């Protein structure tokens, strides 16, 4: 007899035992046996007297947990320059290949972010994104963070590829829309270290000279400053630790 036959023999014996299976549950008593067919109603009855947990979505929107992974946001520095430097590390980190970045060089006339490069094209395909957040971890400048916005559905495939303007954080009070020069006397490192805290005169003057109608200029801002008309911004750190931001609709024409 070979080894194999031994194994088979053991198996056969086990199978025989399985057929002789007996339940470990105790046998029901006679009363329990009588009510068994309607026992389910007991569960229903019990829940009549408990608090409800149903959410009235979409009539009522409940904030997600603070660290919920929602739509991405491309952040800005306090003076309005973009944080993204177009390094594509987020695209490389993404396991779902959902991000597409094309960078370009900042020039004197068009400085979008501190330093040499900025992200000219930035797309996230929400049909692919699995909201893992690896891109956020990869970003060296904290340009990319996630908001709590979870309403990411739409009728078309194209519409779910979010472009840079869909992802960019809205302009906060006191920010000046890019492009404009960096704060004079600073280098990109100063921005990374957080030393740039506000827009300076020179930047405002630069924008005023070239784009006098820019809505983020102080004069144009005060004229139509209607806080409710502007979508509120979620600060990058709020996305991770602060209270949940409002769940806003997607502002796209």
């Amino acid at each position: 007899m070979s080894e194999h036959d031994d194994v088979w023999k053991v198996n056969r014996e086990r199978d025989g035992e399985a057929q002789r299976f007996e339940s470990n549950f105790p046998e029901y008593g006679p009363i329990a046996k009588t009510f068994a067919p309607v026992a389910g109603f007991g569960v229903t009855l019990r829940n009549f007297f408990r608090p409800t947990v149903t959410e009235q979505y979409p009539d009522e929107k409940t904030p997600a947990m603070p660290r919920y992974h929602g739509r991405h946001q491309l952040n800005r520095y306090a003076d309005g320059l973009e944080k993204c430097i177009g390094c594509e590390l987020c695209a490389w980190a993404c396991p779902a290949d959902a991000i597409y970045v094309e960078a370009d060089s900042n020039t004197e006339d068009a400085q979008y972010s501190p330093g040499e490069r900025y992200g000219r094209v930035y797309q996230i395909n929400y049909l692919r994104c699995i909201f893992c957040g690896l891109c956020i971890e990869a970003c060296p400048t904290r340009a990319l963070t996630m908001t709590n916005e979870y309403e990411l559905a739409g009728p078309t495939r194209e519409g779910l590829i979010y472009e840079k303007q869909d992802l960019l954080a809205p302009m906060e009070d006191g920010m000046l829309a890019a492009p404009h020069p960096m704060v004079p006397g600073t280098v990109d490192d100063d921005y990374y270290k957080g030393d740039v805290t506000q827009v300076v005169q020179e930047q405002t003057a630069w924008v005023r000279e070239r784009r006098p109608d820019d809505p983020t200029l102080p004069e144009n801002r005060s004229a139509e400053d209607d806080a409710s008309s502007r979508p509120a911004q979620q600060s990058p750190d709020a996305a991770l630790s602060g209270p949940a931001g409002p769940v806003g609709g997607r502002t796209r024409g």
Partner: protein
Amino acid sequence: MTSTADKATAEVVETVTLTIDGTEVTVPKGTLIIRAAEQVGINIPRFCDHPLLKPAGACRQCLVDVAAPDREGNVRPFPKPQASCTMTAMDGMIVNTQNTSDEAKKAQEGVMELLLINHPLDCPVCDKGGECPLQNQAMSHGHAESRFIDVKRVFEKPLALSSEILLDRERCVLCQRCTRFSKEIAGDAFIDLQNRGAMQQIGTFDEDVLDFDGYEPIGVAAEDESGKAFSSYYSGNTVQICPVGALTSAAYRFRSRPFDLVSSPGISEHDSSGAAIRTDHRRGKVLRRLSDNDPVVNEEWITDKDRFAFAWQNLSDRLERPLVRGEDGELHEASWPDAIARAAAGLRAAAGRTGTPADRKAKGVGVLPGGRVTLEDAYAYQKFARVALGTNDVDARTRGASDEEQAFLGSSVAGTGLGVTFGDLEKAPTVLLVGFEPEDEGGVVFLRLRKSVGRQSVLTVAPFLSRGAEKLSASLIQTAPGGEAGALAAVKAGTDTADALSEDGAVVILGERLATVPGALAEALRLAKRTGARLAWIPRRAGERGAAEAGALPGLLPGGRDAASEAARDAVAQAWSVGSLPEAAGRDAAGIIAAAAAGELSGLVVGGVTPSDLTADLRAALTATDFVVSLEVRRTEVSEHADVVLPVAPTFEKPGTFVNWEGRLRGFATAIRTEAISDHRALDFLGRELGVDLKVGTVADVNEQLAVLGAAPKGQRMKAPTVKAAKPAPATGDQLILASWHMLVDEGALQDGEPYLAGTGRTAVARLSAHTAERIGVKDGVVTITGAAKGAIELPVVVTEMADGVVWVPAKSPGSWVAQELGVEPGTLVTVKGGI
């Protein structure tokens, strides 16, 4: 130290036997330990060591434990680990690398830690990340943790060494590969090590960096009129050999990372050297080109033009669909079948092959393939001309050319196979350059010659000693353009030059400019016969040699056969299975253009030809001709005048072969697959529509035919030219002899769209001797030059030690388009006026 393979082929090599990590290895004497280790598959980490550069021992990463026999023969260990890249192998040596010696391992890890102290570790945003020796070796031979907790040294970044080359000093590991390359290989010592200790850095000769304050650098910075001490044609190589991401090119900086790229080997389309390159593309766009390693041709170096000039292929004026001129006189997009049908109908009428009475009025078609074609394209153009159009009017030489040159090419170049090689140039005891500027017109030829500086005597027949020739320590045989033939004839037996050329292996390099000097090529043949020196014809464009081989010259059939010889014509006709080939002698490019302008041709087929490169008026010819077909990559002046424009593939979108000046076949495959088709395929379509099967649809078809045809047998060859040297016109008054050649980096069509490269080109200046400058009375340091054409060239003057009565200007540099503005070839008289 170049390569051990070279040495192995030499007669008997003295060898030594040593033990590395317990493995015995026998290597030629003088081999470095690091190379010997490579032979047994042991990799010692290194940064500064490079097989083509002299050992430096700058980085100390290659430390190994060595024990060597002393005088008594006792094997004694060295007290400290030794740099294996500077120590040569000795008999009986025992080497223990990091694999077998803890001490060596510890030493290497220590060096790595030291190198990383000030390294920014910004790999995620660094161009080199992913192909970086520092990154790789830090992983394989370094500590996982850094013990350094202080603030790192930083520099302002990037430091622009030139408009193309940028340096991030904090990434530099001071291996000095870049400075050694610049000094040893290129001869442009534009950067060097500066300062000491932690502030040691690579930099240009900048007083601020050097902290010299008020002291000028002593080096030869005077030559460069751009006001900068640096403009090197080979600077891109430093980016490639930098073992970290310290040197980057402006064109590629932050564009992508190695793992984004798809790499394909290729051959550079920029000059006749056929340098091996690597094309890296991403998302269907070429992002960079690197030098490939081809020891017999370009070794590991290429010119900046080979490396950076590729944007032209994808500019916004790139043609994607055929264009056909409509009723309204404008070009409209059309489908391939429509365009081919239109082109064929027009050409059939122009060639007089419709079989109707109108044929009597047809005056024939001329074909101008241009000098940048591949061998296959050139073959297709000439076969198309001879079989489908029934004419010998085909000439790829869209530059100064002559019958003498054709006879020279037919008798001594085409179908002669591999002649003088790069290796022969390196070994030659004497090299005579005639009408050839190695640095400007030769590309990597210059680097090969420079390798032998000190071992080789270089003579140059030129109006003055150019910077390139100076770097080769060349001696000048001062000659005004047009006088080259005389200068060659003057090399009589018994003179020093003749003796030098009689040495075994001496080479005479002939440039394409000699075509316009009557008698020069004939004299060169005589000189070669007299002295036994070998001749090498080095044209500028990549397609020239291939065109000669393929027979894309009016009097030449494939394989160097003489189109005037009946036997040759019969042989080719038989191979092509056609009744006969046209007998009438063909016109050369200038002849075709002149005939077309005079209304003596009814049609033109034009390939990659730039009107501004020609002294002949191609624009007038295009306007005067009834029917023009243009095969182009981009919308150009030619395609704007054409009736049908067929878009063809640029080099990286097609396979093909360039024949380099050595006669070596340099085949390349498609780098990026697109729908674009090669010239030969478009011509095959056209041929079919005209009712002939040219069998040139694929590269394989063409090569099969070329193989069948082979080189011309003796009786079918052209006779060598016997033209007598003419006396050059004397310069009188403000009439000076024009000297001119193309700078490597200039405004050639293949360098379009690359501003960073253009920035490294040399400023255009007019050169005059002091005596001549005085004679014509140069005011304000500027001269105005006029010639046969309507234009004028106005350039600042640089007084140079050179032949009197000669004015030199660059051929196509900014503000100096000689062919277009002056309409004459070098060697002719032009009017030069001082001041404006």
